[in-house]
């Protein structure tokens, strides 16, 4: 799980162009949107693409987005539960 969260942080920084951040700047349970990392709706779309490209997970229900993309921890848990072996 620790490796997965670290990889996720690196991928989030890369795909969202957060070049002012390092992986250690992102706390695992820090909110990704709003007052946390300050991501916006376009970033949310990029996170959906990230799940598809890096983990072959297609978001079945977009309504689940806010719950899945709440933090790095929630993303990691969703990936762990949905990634095919």
């Amino acid at each position, binding site marked *: 799980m620790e490796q997965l969260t670290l990889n996720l942080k690196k991928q989030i920084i890369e795909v*969202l*162009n*957060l*070049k*002012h951040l390092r992986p250690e700047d992102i706390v695992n349970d820090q909110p990704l949107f709003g007052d946390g990392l*300050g991501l916006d709706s*376009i*970033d949310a*779309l*990029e996170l959906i*693409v990230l799940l*598809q*490209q890096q983990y072959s997970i297609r978001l079945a229900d977009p309504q689940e987005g806010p719950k899945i993309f709440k933090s790095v921890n929630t993303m990691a848990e969703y990936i762990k539960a949905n990634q095919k072996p």
Partner: protein
Amino acid sequence: MTDFYCIIRNNKIVKDGVVLFEQENKPDNDFLTEAYDKLGISYPKFYKMDRLSKLGFIAAELLLSTIQGKYQADELAIVLSNSNSSLDTDLRFWDSVKTQASPSLFVYTLPNIVIGEICIRHGIKGENLFFVSPQFDSDWISSYVDMLLVGKKAKFCLAGWIDILADRADVFLYLTDKSISSSKISERYHSWNN
């Protein structure tokens, strides 16, 4: 009278005839990021912008700092123009479509997004327009700016040319609150060509 201008081309950033930043033999994107760092700007969203927006953002940053606090949100107009529209980013987006279309590139596939980025940064709600024309037309721009200023549609106007395609960036923005002759604008635009 407010009369400032900024040129970005040939890997140089020039404000009012003074070179503020210069970087030899660097691709434009590195040039822009290094310029952002060296000029001491702090606005993390800069990294997410396309190159057209980064160019406009830096030039606007340098010019609008001269009139900070001197205008209301609706008193500053922005009139920009270029010849390549958003083609630089359109091509990158088209390239991304071959694998996975990038939402963050897609949102920059309009030339006037650069105006939006400047407005968001500086809280501007004034008139704004983006013209696409074969080359910089100082007569047209100066007459349009005059119309906005004389007609009291704006107290200040940020105007000019902002173009990029592949390795060629060409930016000339000026900030004014009074009429500036077309010939003077043209003369400034053609300076720092080497």
